[in-house]
């Protein structure tokens, strides 16, 4: 017993070391969204390509969707864009854009120039929907299920590695849920 107590500090230090060492590799931006498990907030905004056309929550609900927050002022969005064009080919999901705190003209030019992967982009000039979604930068991507409930939020650029690791499993799960009629 007394021998064990002698080793206690050593054991404590090693444990602490492990915990702190792991902490070095955690991504501080990787925070659970407060909105996971909640419905998409209500909104009424225009479509990026048509300032007359209003969209609301009802236009989004019904499919398994990805909502990608993007802007022309965001360099990482440019990096991510080709992957989004690729993801848009996936027939199981629908990709929508949320053009966040941007200028309509510049954003339209961007889509002309780099191809438009989105079903449509919601034009959120003031960032009001962004605020309700807890967005604090771009790019961010939300996975929303067929009931309109947010299931995952990812902050940062999507590429093949991230797609396979972070998105594919959740989407596979949602497709399964939908097939089971949940």
């Amino acid at each position: 017993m007394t021998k064990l107590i002698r080793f206690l500090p050593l054991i404590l230090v090693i444990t602490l070391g492990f915990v702190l060492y792991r902490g070095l590799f955690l991504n501080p931006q990787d925070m659970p969204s407060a909105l996971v498990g909640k419905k998409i907030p209500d909104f009424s905004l225009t479509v990026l390509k048509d300032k007359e056309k209003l969209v609301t929550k009802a236009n989004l609900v019904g499919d398994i969707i990805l909502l990608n927050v993007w802007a022309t002022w965001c360099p990482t969005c440019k990096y991510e864009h080709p992957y989004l064009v690729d993801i848009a080919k996936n027939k199981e999901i629908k990709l929508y854009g949320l053009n966040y705190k941007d200028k309509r003209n510049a954003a339209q030019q961007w889509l002309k120039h780099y191809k438009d992967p989105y079903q449509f982009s919601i034009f959120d000039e003031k960032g009001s929907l962004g605020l309700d979604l807890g967005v604090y930068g771009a790019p961010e991507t939300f996975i929303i299920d067929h009931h309109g409930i947010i299931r995952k939020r990812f902050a940062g650029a999507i590429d093949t590695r991230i797609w396979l690791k972070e998105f594919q499993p959740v989407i596979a799960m949602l497709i399964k849920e939908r097939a089971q009629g949940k």
Partner: protein
Amino acid sequence: MKLIINTMTVLLILFYVNTSVAGPAATFEFRDEVTKIRFQALSKELRCPKCQNQNLAGSNSPIANDLRSEIYELLNQGKADSEIVNFMVERYGDFVLYRPRVSALTYILWFGPIVLILFGAIIVTVIVRRKPVEKEDLLLNTEQQDKLKRFLNK
């Protein structure tokens, strides 16, 4: 003379620091002093989601700017402080609070230190109260004393 110059420098630095802290809030016009104080308190209490080691008052990132204007708006709408804090937590999670709420997740934060202190106190008491080693044991018995004498006499 040197003392005066030093004091002046310190005062200048203090003045500069004070004004720069008030900087980001300076663009808002408040209807009364209370609202201003509430605004400043809230933007000190809430953390910037992007620059995680700064509060809203201290950060110049676009999102901190937006959230400051949001607080301003909500204050003007006559919302209570707790409503504003809830508004932020609903969107950005408990993370935005610099003083986390007491919940199952944060028990270890709130009560961990107390538990550690108690743990330490128990260990100290146990050690202090432990029966002192009896003095007789420390004394040399006759056999040992003989041995000692032999060594010393050599």
